[in-house]
């Protein structure tokens, strides 16, 4: 008894240490990102214009990147536990594409209404999540092949609808849309930051409130049910929260890939699979990852810019293969 208590305590200490280190890293990355950019800004003694560049352009973009990263990572963490599958990720499951399609419908048909974008993105993400879930679930339960296959099918289906819709766009719009589709944080505005921040805070709180239940469900839905977990409710909460955060993230920045896959994976490797830690740590690590990737996107070929989604994929895909081979 004493032994387990001690081991619990050392585990908790370890978690606190890791959490502290992650937060510190986040602060360092945020500050570093604020100092780097296409324009070289002196740390002290900024002119009015330089101040405006920092405050109106760079900082909102960094904050939005942090929100988007946190959103995608917590959504990935939640979906992975719920579907009991390390491959579950908003981008691979088609949830991001669902949100992208929603945003695009808003973009093409309701251009004047700003608020329709996040709303339709949320709806699209929700529908895609439900579609994948319905396809995955059968009497015998879910397996990896089914999940990946369903994700691929939903993703390609939604992509083809998106491509069809792009034919309605003229050449100039098409160019901006392609950029957005790859994940692009350059359109960050204060309102976008507030919206994403609100979504990610609410989403993370919901997911953390379900963390205990998710831990039980990782054993198996049937067993979790026997332990008294309201499986249906948990599922609804996790799907809802994931759709909310992914919808907000995609509406603000397009579909940034691999964040929801890599980040929770790395977090689990470090802190174990307790969702009470995985969810908040994923949020912080996701923010770090995207802000870091976007700093590269902003500076690599300055004054031109890369879409951040291209950078996350560039970092994420090899990392994923490495992890896959190591395990």
């Amino acid at each position, binding site marked *: 008894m004493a032994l387990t208590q001690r081991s619990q305590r050392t585990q908790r200490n370890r978690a606190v240490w890791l959490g502290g280190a992650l937060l510190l890293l986040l602060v360092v990355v945020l500050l570093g990102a604020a100092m780097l950019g296409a324009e070289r800004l002196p740390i002290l003694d900024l002119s009015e214009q330089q101040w*405006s560049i920092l405050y109106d352009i760079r900082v909102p973009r960094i904050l939005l990147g942090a929100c988007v990263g946190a959103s995608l990572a917590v959504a990935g963490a939640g979906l992975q536990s719920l579907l009991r599958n390390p491959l579950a990720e908003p981008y691979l499951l088609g949830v991001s594409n669902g949100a992208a399609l929603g945003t695009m419908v808003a973009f093409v048909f309701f251009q004047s209404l700003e608020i329709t974008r996040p709303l339709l993105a949320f709806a699209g993400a929700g529908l895609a999540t439900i579609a994948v879930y319905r396809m995955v679930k059968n009497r015998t339960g879910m397996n990896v092949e089914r999940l990946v296959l369903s994700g691929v099918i939903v993703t390609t289906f939604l992509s083809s609808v998106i491509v069809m819709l792009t034919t309605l766009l003229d050449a100039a719009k098409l160019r901006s849309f392609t950029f957005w589709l790859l994940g692009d944080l*350059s359109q960050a505005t204060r309102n976008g930051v507030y919206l994403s921040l609100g979504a990610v805070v609410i989403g993370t709180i919901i997911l953390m409130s379900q963390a205990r239940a998710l831990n039980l469900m990782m054993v198996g839905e049937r067993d979790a049910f026997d332990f008294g977990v309201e499986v249906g409710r948990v599922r609804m909460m996790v799907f809802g929260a994931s759709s909310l955060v992914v919808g907000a993230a995609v509406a603000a920045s397009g579909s940034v890939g691999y964040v929801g896959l890599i980040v929770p994976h790395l977090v689990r490797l470090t802190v174990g699979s307790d969702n009470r830690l995985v969810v908040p740590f994923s949020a912080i690590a996701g923010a770090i990852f995207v802000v870091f990737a976007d700093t590269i996107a902003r500076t690599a070929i300055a004054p031109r810019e890369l879409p951040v989604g291209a950078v996350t994929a560039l970092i994420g895909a090899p990392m994923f293969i490495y992890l896959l081979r190591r395990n």
Partner: protein
Amino acid sequence: MIDVSRQNIAGKHGNFCNNALFFWSMNVDDGKARRFLLKDKGERIKEKVGRKKRFIFLLLALLAACGGVKNDSATSSSVSQVPMRVVTDDLGRTVTVPVKITRAVSLAPSLTENIFAVGAGDRLVGVTTFCNYPEAAKSIAKIGDTMNPNMESIVALKPDVVFVSTASQIEAFTKTLEANGIAVYVTNPKDLEGLFENLTNLGRLFGTESAADILVTQLRDRSNKCFIPVRAPQRVFVQISKEPLFTIGRGAFVTELVKTAGGISVTADVESAYPKISKETASALDPEVIILSESDDNKEPNEVFNNSPAVKKGRVFKINADLLSRPGPRLVDALDQIAKDLHPEKFK
């Protein structure tokens, strides 16, 4: 010229029957002729061949013999071929086109405008869905858009030559077309002078040299009037799209136009023609003038320019996106507008 027409009779329309149809078709409009040639050809030939088989064969043999002799001395190609000539396109490729181009397809709005401008618009049998100028271009058969032309539609139109611009990234399709025996002529004007050259070349290709020469002289005159030498050129930002922020860089026509009109594009040194530029840099560039390539979602400057001298002094000008983005004769209209916007005092 007489030689050419005789070879035509003996060549392209290899039997008498088709020749008759060909001559007749010259008197009707292109659409009618095409329908006639495509749909009714079979039936009509059957009717006549049955009745006058011998006569036709006799004539055919005679004509073929005549044409053969001529061909041997002229182009040394076989009897069944149209008189051809070899030209060089803007990429330095050698292209074999008929001496008289009667059916052309344009795969870029600028090329459509140029072909109309040199007086050969009536030879266009296919254009892209983007080709909306001049008015007459709208009623020509559409073969898809610049990026995704429909190969089958193009081949079905039986063009002598297909005109592409490198801007349309169409090189990939060239092989398919050439495999179908359709010549592909690539144009790649890089500046105003290149545009004038392009117009002259098109005039030569279509045999409308005089119209092209007149046009080029006029355009050259007008663009010379827009040449405004200044000591301190105004610093201009050209906004192609507001969100995300696209502008013009090195290699865009407009960069040259702005320079001619007594300004300087603040993004003139940025690599690539239409770069997406960082908002930080755009804001730091602090332009004195902003030119908007006017389209539905590009009607005002990006917020990062709110404190720029251009916005503060109200020096924001709009120019129709079609004028700015197409290397056609209307590029001179764009130049004219830029010059008047930058230096209104010179045009009183």
